[in-house]
């Protein structure tokens, strides 16, 4: 029998050994949920900020002229990945040590990306290559490039990880990928162009503003895909992979953002500077409210929706109980706002402001703002593990 003293010594020794190992590896992040990731387009790095102290922990330089676009942490918290738009490469960073562990060549101009729920597959969308690169996170290698898309923008995995839905901004359909075989299975048309489309070649032939993302409902049963040219949101039943309802919203909806309470979703309509609030239980527009120009994102926190108007310097606020406007927060003048993420407690927003190279932290309840400067050059987006508002533009 081991004595109590012996066991205590053994535990202490193990702890010391672990600590020594960690120190030897220069561990910088022990809790992946404790950081905000910031993708800095012009300083070509991913910066990490402590959520509690708002201090910068460190950054990972990716290379000259990489221009990273979107950052995401794997669901297991082990890796952070990004696509370098001007480098045509995917970058994989080890979270604890903040080391760049792998650089992988992908297709042209990689932008948005997604992880399968089990963290095994990293799908990197290549909008100018019209493809998706499949990266196996077990071996950290690209195993396949899935062709056949038309400017694939955003990818969303089904909750069981068996399918991935791809928004095609250069077309009016959502692609369904079989994740087991990494093949494009089906194209779901959101809605046909109206009969008068042929009279309006400037709009329908000049430049397609199609589907940005198929946004899943909180229960994963339905996906909501806005089509910019058609001004509609198609509701896709994920069991049958077909559109079950088409909801007309305002002109040129950018995409659908899903509320956290499962009641409402919002489309920012850049065509007329409004937002459409969709009641997702009844699949109809509950309100159309005035907003601002050039909207790039919507975040939900504290019972409110925060809509980012990138060129006006304002964040528009809406009360999601009354569905009424609740003022707007002035972030600055002559600045460019990018996108934001929300913390997992739904209390604070972390908004990238690229002109002054800062992240603006907005308290959802009080609407007070705090600025964290010198986060890197041209912060383009932010990301928090397990946040419900992780997106890019």
């Amino acid at each position: 029998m081991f004595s109590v003293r012996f066991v205590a010594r053994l535990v202490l020794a193990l702890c010391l050994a672990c600590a020594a190992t960690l120190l030897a590896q220069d561990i910088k992040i022990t809790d992946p949920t404790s950081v905000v990731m910031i993708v800095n387009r012009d300083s070509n790095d991913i910066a990490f900020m402590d959520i509690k102290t708002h201090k910068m922990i460190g950054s990972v330089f990716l290379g000259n002229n990489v221009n990273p676009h979107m950052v995401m942490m794997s669901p297991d918290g082990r890796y952070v990945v990004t696509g370098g738009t001007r480098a045509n490469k995917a970058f994989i960073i080890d979270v604890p040590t903040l080391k760049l562990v792998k650089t992988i060549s992908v297709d042209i101009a990689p932008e948005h990306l997604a992880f399968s729920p089990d963290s095994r597959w990293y799908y990197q969308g290549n909008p100018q290559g019209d493809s998706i690169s499949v990266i196996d996170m077990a071996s950290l290698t690209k195993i396949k490039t899935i062709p056949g898309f038309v400017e694939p923008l955003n990818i969303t995995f089904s909750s069981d990880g068996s399918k991935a839905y791809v928004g095609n901004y250069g077309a009016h359909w959502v692609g369904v990928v079989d994740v087991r075989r990494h093949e494009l299975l089906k194209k779901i048309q959101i809605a046909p162009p109206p009969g008068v489309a042929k009279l309006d070649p400037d709009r329908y032939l000049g430049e397609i503003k199609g589907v940005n993302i198929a946004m899943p409902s909180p229960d994963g049963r339905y996906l909501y895909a806005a089509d910019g040219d058609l001004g509609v949101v198609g509701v896709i039943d994920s069991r049958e992979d077909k559109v079950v309802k088409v909801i007309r919203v305002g002109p040129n909806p950018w995409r659908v953002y899903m509320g956290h309470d499962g009641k409402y979703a919002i489309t920012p309509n850049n065509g007329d500077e409004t937002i459409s609030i969709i009641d997702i239980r009844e699949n109809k527009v509950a309100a159309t409210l005035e907003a601002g120009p050039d909207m790039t994102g919507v975040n939900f926190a504290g019972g409110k929706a925060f809509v980012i108007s990138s060129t006006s310097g304002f964040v528009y606020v809406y009360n999601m109980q009354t569905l009424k406007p609740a003022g707007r927060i002035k972030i600055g003048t002559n600045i460019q706002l990018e996108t934001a993420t929300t913390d997992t407690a739904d209390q604070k927003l972390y908004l990238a402001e690229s002109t002054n190279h800062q992240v603006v932290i907005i308290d959802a309840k009080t609407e007070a703002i705090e600025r964290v400067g010198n986060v890197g050059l041209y912060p383009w987006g932010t990301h928090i593990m397990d946040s419900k508002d992780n997106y890019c533009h």
Partner: protein
Amino acid sequence: MLNMRDVSRFGSRLLRGGAMAAVASALAIPSIANAQMPPMPQMPPMPPASAGARAEESVNESTDPKALLERIKLLEQRLADLESSTVLSEPETRVKRVEVWVDPEGGQHDEPVTGAKKVVTYQRERVYRRQTINEKIEEALSGEAEKSVQVGVSAAIATQVAAQTKGAATGNSGHAYALGSADLFFTARVAQNTLFFADVVGLSGPSPDGEIGGLTLLNGFTARLVNQNELNLREAWLRTELFSQKLSLTVGRLDLTNTFDHNAAANDETTQFLSDALVNNPTLGLAVNGTGFAAVYDPKRSLNFKLGMQQSNTDATNLSDSLFSLAEIGYFATPFSLGEGNYRVWYRQANSTGSHRGAFGVSLDQKLAPAITLFARYGSGQAPSTNGNSSFSTGHHFYSGGVQFRNGVVFFPGDAWGVGYAQTGLGTGPRERLTEAYYNFGLTERLKLSFHLTHVLEKQPAAGTVGFLVPGVRLQAAF
């Protein structure tokens, strides 16, 4: 609106079209230079540059088909790489507003120091970012566009026919009318949050209002008509926004109906109802545009406040005798779990008769469903007499209401239709009852075609009641 995505896509196309052929030509591959390029196949990872160069050298003189194919593959890969990386790698320069601290000796510090004063200055900043050539071009073009004067056009022609349905023959039955209108808009940003706007309008052609003398206009465009075939300056004003853009001040020659008595479903003769009674509230009394100002306080919440003053009579020699004063409170509500509704109450005073003549009114629009909007207006008070001058009749009573349908219940997505009723009465006895229905086809984003059917009953105490049915067609282009 162009966003980064549009810019990037434009670049991709540009490069695929022009740069590929040019590069192919430079690399002496006639088949590529002269032909349309097929879609780019998936390529293996690019070998290192030195290895590529060696491979190229080794096959340069080779006539082996396999080696040539390899070379084509390599060149295609280079082409693909060039497509995505034909960029400007020179540093990007921009100017930033910075806060610095200046000490009493004039020394500038980046951080606070004792005795130094914080001042704002501007400083160049350099960043190292690759930009495609088209991004640079697009930036330059949009920068130029922002600085220049923007011009817009709104042109419409409304053709109507009058058929008398009631009362003693007036001789106007069967007459046709066509009034054309063209507005030229000029807008320019002249300072931070400050805009200049001017609207020059020209009208030509007869409208039914010249022959059917109603209390309100059967063709809302007639309200703009000063003289036929002449250009008139309708509006020319400066607007600035203060206090985090919550307060806007507009000064110049104004049309205050663009600020007061709004209505989501009945406010625009170019896209909604044609009859003026379903566009404006006659008791508001704003028959002509004039010099004035408008202040709007809108914190982007439920309540907003408006205040305005405007010259009421263009013939007056001073403003003291010809001034409209208006105030409005607007409230945004979603009552009974319905959609969004806008409720407005206004009060107006005019001093053109020596004494202050007041009026008040209400304008509301309420969505019942995403596709259905109810609207109503009410007004009471002393308003200008119907001959367009500034003398005020005693007692003017007005109400209107109706419904507008959009989305779901239309033929095409951009269509809208509506039905409205308006009743106008003067204290001296004349009364007008007007009903209009319209269907507006949104043919393109810039072109709309609408069909209107209006029925009006005009009751004159001395002459009895006459009725007219006025079908019409309106073609409107805006760009």
